[in-house]
């Protein structure tokens, strides 16, 4: 099982319109997307996307509005059926499921958090959190017990009996998150889950999600239009544009080697110190004497920057605490400066 990716999307194409087949065959002939759209009047939502999500990772799909990212994520639990392509979840072909199997799959294997929360306005917080369990057929005492636990975990203890519309946006999304987590599925789909929230609340929710992920180790497919958010929480990032996958890789790869001008535009505004890990720029030297201060290999440039106010070197230690190398302020500055827009410099 360990070699099977949690989610595997193979060559998925989604065409909206009444004659998707015509547009599909034109696309397969290698015609450009805009050509096909103009000729057939069909709208191409997702264009031949393949994506593989490894177990226990947060995989971010990032793109501007209209890039097809929300359409793509809905293929994974078949809220949308593809025009062509294959989707495997835990190695099982989702597209061959009949309605009954699909319902069972949705109840047991996969949970989802929505941008607009999708809470049931006529139910209290605890009944909302228990909704998925109720649908699954858990008995009342058990589902309320589980729901109460998750409400506590997401920090809403005391709000069990409140109605959703009495809560703030951030609190409502906590309810949405608790509802998904209560299903205890390995896979979580998050569709712009934090995009409707204020920046400060959003940042807090991101931190909490990462903290939760430390404990739960779920497979999370996370959709966002916010590159900073993608860099902060993503183990890997896939960038979509106009329905097509442009680049896929770990955050620093996207930042350091943007595949095209479109991605470079994103990168230009981004806090690179957050994206680049110490590991990728450190000098390896296991025999060096111990530095006065050290950080983990997973640390980002952001984390070591303040240390340079005091120290010239900062050691880097691996998982077991052994020092494997060091970084200097110069190395960090070099990495951060590499892709800045060129400014005219004069040498005296």
């Amino acid at each position: 099982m360990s070699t099977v990716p949690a989610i595997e999307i193979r060559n998925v194409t989604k065409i909206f319109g009444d004659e998707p087949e015509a547009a599909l065959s034109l696309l397969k002939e290698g015609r450009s997307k805009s050509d096909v759209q103009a000729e057939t009047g069909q709208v191409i939502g997702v264009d031949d996307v393949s994506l593989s999500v490894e177990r226990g990772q947060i995989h971010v799909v990032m793109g501007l509005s209209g890039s097809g990212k929300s359409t793509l994520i809905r293929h994974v639990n078949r809220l949308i059926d593809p025009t062509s392509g294959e989707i495997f979840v835990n190695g099982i072909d989702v597209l061959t499921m009949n309605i009954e199997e699909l319902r069972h799959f949705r109840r047991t294997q996969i949970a989802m958090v929505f941008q607009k929360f999708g809470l049931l306005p006529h139910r209290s917080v605890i009944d909302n959190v228990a909704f998925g369990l109720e649908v699954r057929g858990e008995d009342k005492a058990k589902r309320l017990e589980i729901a109460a636990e998750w409400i506590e975990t997401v920090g809403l203890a005391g709000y069990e009996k409140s109605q959703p519309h009495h809560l703030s946006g951030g609190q409502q999304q906590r309810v949405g998150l608790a509802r998904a987590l209560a299903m205890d599925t390995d896979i979580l789909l998050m569709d712009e889950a934090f995009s409707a929230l204020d920046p400060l609340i959003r940042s807090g929710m991101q931190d909490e999600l990462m903290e939760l992920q430390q404990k739960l180790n779920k497979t999370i497919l996370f959709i966002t239009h916010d590159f900073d958010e993608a860099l902060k929480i993503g183990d890997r990032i896939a960038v979509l544009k106009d329905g097509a996958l442009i680049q896929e890789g770990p955050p620093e790869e996207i930042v350091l080697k943007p595949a095209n001008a479109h991605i470079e535009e994103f990168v230009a505004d981004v806090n690179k110190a957050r994206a680049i890990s110490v590991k990728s720029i450190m000098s390896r030297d296991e025999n060096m004497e111990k530095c006065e201060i050290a950080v983990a290999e997973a640390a980002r440039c952001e984390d070591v920057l303040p240390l340079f106010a005091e120290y010239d070197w900062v050691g880097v230690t691996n998982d077991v605490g052994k020092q494997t190398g060091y970084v200097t302020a110069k190395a960090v500055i070099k990495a951060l400066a590499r892709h800045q827009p060129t400014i005219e410099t004069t040498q005296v």
Partner: protein
Amino acid sequence: MFPEIIDTRPLRRWVDDGLEWVVRAWGDEFEAAAQPLLFLLNSIQRFLLWLPWWLIIIVLVGLAYAATRRAVLPIVVLIAMIFLGLMELWEDSVKTMALMIAATLTAIVFSLPVGIVMARSAIVRRIVTPILDLMQTLPSFVYLIPVVMIFGPGKIPALIATIVYAAPPLVRLTDLGLRLVDPDVLEATQAFGATPRQRLFGVQIPLALPTILAGVNQTTMMALAMVVIASMIGAGGLGYQVLQGIGRLEVSRGLFAGLGIVALAIIFDRVTQAFGKQLQERIGLSEVGK
């Protein structure tokens, strides 16, 4: 004048004969089929007449208070009921109330399923909508004549005419309410693997309930609007008093009975509306629903 191109007499005769044939061949079956309706109406009427007058007043005033939690509506209801009693209109009011309640209950039983099917299928909606339009615009006498021919004058044709006239808004508002349910909420329930049944009863109907209740409100109002016509074919009640007032040129009788109908309308309109508003606030749709 439009020239006479075809002779319409055979067509008319064919319709008339056809109806007569239906009455002769199927009259008993129709009457038997309508017995439950009559039973419902008579039971409600007997029950309401059996209740002491003060209990009815207490219940209605209590409902008004429960719906608004304020003193204004209960006082209005109390005054209206005392007016009906003082004007010697009590028994007629109760009969009219019974007709209205029976028509509304029957309309609910028929309208909700139709509204639900309409909300799910555009084809059904396209078929049912013109029928509803017809039910509301066709002068009620047009269908009263065949109904009276089949059932004979009495309470059944009165009840059927009232239902035909009063049901359409409930069907429409059930359909509308179900379709207005937030698609994001429906998508979420789908993503959690809810069956269509769980979705309908657990999410769609509860969320459409304020709109459906507005339909019930409309239905009660339209049922009351039919009482005078219904009394012409033997429904009795306040409408009959109005009719007699017209016949005997007794303005006072017609006026007071008419005011009685208005009083009943105010009571039921305000109480059902207040309940709808309360429900809407509980769901938190008050901002959206207005």
